[in-house]
């Protein structure tokens, strides 16, 4: 009986659903101003602007993230005591050399607040690192980026928007190459 009732009114039910669908599409439509606005939100979340920071490098100069707008950025948070960080560092060194002449910047941020200068120096010598190493001495940038485990890697597009976040490691070199090349595409 109930089935026959539904069957007899099926066209009305279908029409009501189509109306409902269109209503939802129209009500939830995003105006252009909202789209532009959310692209300016600064949060360590995929799809949003990477929070800006300025950190001293191991060479003594300062690097500001916003100065690198227009380039794809790989941001890696690490510490010398973290085993996966040790395993993946040669990968980052290789990528740094591989993409040196492209619109790409690789920045590694050492959580210096949780590390020691001696261990850091020994680490750099052991792996012959020439890639940029920034020092987060007070842990502020790590807190801004809500780093909950090490290593954590962010891939930031040329427009400053976070395209991917990779938790843990050692991160796959193939995955990074694919992500970087996807981000470098115009």
């Amino acid at each position, binding site marked *: 009986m109930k*089935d*026959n009732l*539904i*069957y007899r009114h*099926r066209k009305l*039910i*279908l029409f009501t*659903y*189509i109306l409902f*669908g269109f209503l*939802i*599409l129209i*009500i*939830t*439509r*995003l*105006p*252009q101003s*909202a*789209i532009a606005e*959310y692209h300016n*939100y600064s*949060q360590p*979340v*995929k*799809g*949003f602007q990477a929070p800006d920071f300025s950190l001293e490098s191991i060479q003594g100069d300062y690097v500001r993230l916003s100065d690198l707008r227009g380039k794809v950025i790989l941001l890696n948070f690490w510490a010398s005591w973290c085993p996966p960080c040790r395993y993946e560092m040669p990968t980052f060194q290789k990528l740094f050399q591989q993409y040196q002449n492209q619109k790409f910047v690789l920045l590694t941020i050492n959580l210096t607040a949780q590390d020691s200068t001696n261990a850091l120096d020994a680490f750099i010598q052991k792996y012959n690192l020439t890639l940029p190493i920034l020092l987060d001495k007070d842990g502020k940038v790590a807190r801004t980026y809500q780093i*909950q*485990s090490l290593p954590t890697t962010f891939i930031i597009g040329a427009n400053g928007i976070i395209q991917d976040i*990779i*938790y*843990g490691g050692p*991160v*796959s*070199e*193939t*995955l990074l*190459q*694919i992500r970087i090349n996807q981000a470098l595409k115009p």
Partner: protein
Amino acid sequence: MFPILHIGPISIQTPGLILIIGLWIAISLSEKLHEKQGIAFEPIQQIIFYSLIFGIGFARLFYVFTYPKYFFQSPINIISLNPSLLDPWGAIIGIALVILWYVRRLKLNPASTFDSLSITLSIFLIFISLADWAAGGQIGVPTRLPFGMYFQGEYRHPVQLYQILSSTLITLLLLKIFMKKGERKPAQLTTLFIFLVSTAQLVISGLILNQDTIIAGFRLSQLFYFIIGLVSLYYLLNFPGTKRVTNG
């Protein structure tokens, strides 16, 4: 929210852990419910098991064929445990092949096979929603409702909680129909599941601010869910006169 769970010195990716636990619960619970209804669950268990293997295998294969030169440079990554190196379309094809093969090989009734898989999937969907909430990647549009979540200076729709709620309600409804004695229409549960999930996603994805392709302000995912919902509703409404399956 909390993508990483720290247990002593060990860091675990929370979404992955939730999915593994969820899969186990979904299969166990589904098995018990099928036993109560007198329906054999073993073929379904085999389908799920081999779907996982072939789904992951095909997902990796498709990803490798999409980016062959990178895997050629480093072939060891073909067997890497990294879940980011998986193609979802490959997974879907792998799973579809397993289901097709099993239905033909064991001469299973396709409609009741899909219904049983839908029951299991709907329970697992709750855990997919929970894993999504743990990952914390979705941000809602602003709202004045009292239960909004505060983010970036405004209260916003708690979209991940909506996902959990909708998946729970869908599962409860499907289980209620499944446990009811009497005749059911062929693939009724499957079609109803698809319809309910599509409709829920049509509404919820309209409340998500990020992670979507937007054309002229309209989210592409919403259009997709709308079409799927419409097609499944059409099928649901045109059942009378078709062959029925008996439950229990």
